[in-house]
């Protein structure tokens, strides 16, 4: 039974208090942060007792160089303008804030607004971070970027930025994820990237990160590791958040413009936590806005087949940061499970661990079937096919909406959902889930044509002889 992550909330809390006091003097007590006024721009390396640089010495110089380059760029009006220009004219920002009126009826009648990151170039929020880091890579004189990818969205975004900025690109992707997201493998290859299927361990995101780190150690002179989520060693969590802050900044002014007030709740899905921290950023200092992060509950947290890191994990170190972690009693990472490749990760960004501990954000699990129900509802009520990752946030919003409805007039309540990506990549998985495939894996009703494709040989043997 040791492969089931333990639910040890008491132990975790005790761990936190004891560590908060001695985290190399950099620990910030929750109270201090509230006193100092803002949660929105935590610079790292520590977020309370979380974060840091639990990394091989070989990579520390590269992390230092990255931090220095990032800190300089952030202050450089030219860099800031360059990002803004790319966001506008390449990604298509600002992304829309769309009211989902028919979907709202499924969420207790609360008004639901969708932050449309699905409309960005490449189909998800991932492009925000990728353009920022790819520009930093160029500033550092690096000619090659490497990336890990789960759903393939970060890999596609990285391949895109590499093509656009003239960089070489290698993407590590778990072999299991290559299978689940085959379409995205082809997209990356079309964009000129090399995709390396990773067959170690669980063959998913965490193993792809391990292989990317091994590549980075060996090639750090020429290569930037373009990490795709707000996790990992400092400066990645604070830097990735910085590039996604645009989501929250836009959403805040859009909701004010459209409704004249701040929302009651903001919902996002949590893989490593980048889309969530990006939209939360806009509202962290508004105490009346409730923030919700929805983790992948897989087949149900009681089954052990899930990726509900904060809900069931306990603090540990993985991939360079101290954070909540799905681990067994020996400290071995437990394999996560989710229908959504992008949420199938046993770790989480350190800032989320901190926001959980201080109670600013509520983290809850959403099962595969709850997410797929919400996926279907959005397709049929709004004409939008969401990513399965984002469907976890939609399912959460349905629950939050129903809860808000109990408090009073639902039509007065406002929820923003970060629709982090579009579902084109998930059509195969969804068709399978909803029983739309025949026994050969073909969409039912698509194999009836009696016309012969060009070059078709009616008899296999004959065909070979002819060839």
């Amino acid at each position, binding site marked *: 039974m040791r492969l089931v992550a333990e639910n040890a909330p008491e132990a975790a809390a005790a761990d936190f208090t004891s560590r908060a006091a001695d985290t190399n003097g950099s620990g910030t007590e929750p109270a201090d942060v509230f006193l100092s006024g803002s949660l929105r721009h935590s610079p790292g390396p520590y977020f309370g007792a979380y974060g840091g640089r*639990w990394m091989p*010495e*070989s990579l*520390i110089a590269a992390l230092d160089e990255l931090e220095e380059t990032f800190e300089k760029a952030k202050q450089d009006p030219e860099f800031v303008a360059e990002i803004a220009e790319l966001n506008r004219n390449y990604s298509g920002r600002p992304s829309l804030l769309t009211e989902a009126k028919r979907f709202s009826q499924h969420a207790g009648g609360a008004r639901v607004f969708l932050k449309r990151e699905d409309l960005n170039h490449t189909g998800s929020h991932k492009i925000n971070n990728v353009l920022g880091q790819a520009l930093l890579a160029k500033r550092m004189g690096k000619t090659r970027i490497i990336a890990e990818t789960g759903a393939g969205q970060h890999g596609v975004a990285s391949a895109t930025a590499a093509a656009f900025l003239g960089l070489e690109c290698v993407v590590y992707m778990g072999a299991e994820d290559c299978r689940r997201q085959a379409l995205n493998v082809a997209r990356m290859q079309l964009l000129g990237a090399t995709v390396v299927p990773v067959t170690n361990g669980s063959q998913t995101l965490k193993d792809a990160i391990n292989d990317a780190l091994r590549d980075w150690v060996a*090639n750090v002179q020429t290569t930037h590791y373009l990490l795709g989520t707000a996790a990992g060693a400092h400066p990645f969590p604070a830097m990735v958040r910085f590039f996604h802050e645009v989501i929250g900044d836009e959403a805040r002014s859009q909701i004010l413009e459209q409704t004249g007030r701040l929302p009651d709740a903001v919902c996002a899905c949590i893989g490593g936590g980048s889309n969530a921290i990006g939209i939360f950023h806009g509202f962290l200092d508004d105490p009346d806005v409730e923030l919700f992060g929805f983790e992948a509950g897989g087949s149900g947290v009681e089954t052990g087949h899930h990726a509900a890191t904060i809900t069931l994990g306990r603090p*540990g170190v993985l991939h360079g940061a101290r954070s909540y972690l799905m681990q067994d009693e*020996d400290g*071995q990472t437990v394999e996560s499970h989710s229908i959504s490749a992008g949420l199938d990760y046993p770790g989480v960004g350190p800032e989320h661990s901190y926001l959980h501990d201080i109670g600013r954000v509520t983290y809850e699990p959403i099962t595969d079937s709850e997410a797929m129900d919400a996926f279907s509802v959005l397709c049929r009520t709004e004409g939008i096919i969401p990513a399965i990752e984002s469907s976890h946030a939609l399912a959460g919003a349905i629950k939050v909406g129903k809860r808000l409805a109990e408090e009073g007039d639902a039509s007065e309540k406002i929820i923003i959902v970060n629709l982090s990506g579009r579902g084109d990549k998930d059509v195969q998985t969804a068709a399978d889930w909803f029983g739309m495939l025949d026994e050969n894996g073909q969409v039912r009703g698509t194999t009836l044509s009696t016309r012969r494709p060009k070059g078709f040989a009616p008899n296999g043997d004959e065909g070979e002889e002819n060839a």
Partner: protein
Amino acid sequence: MSAMEQAAEGTVEGHASKSAAAIDRAKAEGRAALVGYLPAGFPSVQESIDAAIELAHNGADIIEIGIPYSDPVMDGSVIQAATTEALASGFRVASVFDVVKAVTDATDAAVLVMTYWNPVMRMGVDEFARRLARAGGAGLITPDLIPDEASEWFEASDRYGLDRVFLVAPSTTPERMAMTVDATRGFTYAVSLMGVTGARAAVDESAQRVVAGAREAGAERVCVGLGVSNAEHVREIAAYADGVIVGTAIVSALRDGGPAAVGRLAAALSGGLAREGHPA
């Protein structure tokens, strides 16, 4: 004051270190020390003990016992395959103390544990250190723990008189070199190249530079590891370093030929340890 009392006060000096003592014994014999790595539990706990004893009986001065870990980012394919197999056959972290004790009891070698940090954190740094010291272990080599994050480990290693072997790399700046050498007890682990563990055709030219940098920063004992595969490599490194660390080659020998093959390889490797003018 006894060593343990000194340890309790956090005043353990370099000379109290078991691995430093092992290196100094080799030095007195006019040679570099041989440091050999084996993962605990591969192919079984007992065979890993047998292999480590063979290693020590055939010339290894220091034994590194690795703890198999789910996410070994500093390891290449051979060691990954071995540790994955150990985990698949049910290896538990606490068994490492049995391995350390068995090897310490049966040999004169100093026995260090090499581990990624999360298993130590999970057990509790103090508890881990206490059990390691009780098993007779010399200390820890920590590939993903830098001194910047090691405050708990400083306390525990001082309390139980354990060595703290940190790594330095070709990319390490002079400032970090000084800081790391200062934090180290036992020896400084000079990573020979930018990369992960695995056999290499030749010793990277950067190895000698890293050793020189560590010495400039005040390191008394520096051992070189990563990619060291044969007696020729050992001979080359022994000319300028205090110890030579061999991992992947030993794990391959164990995989292909069992503990006896480890003994034969260790004997061959020790042939390369003698310095000019000092036939070992």
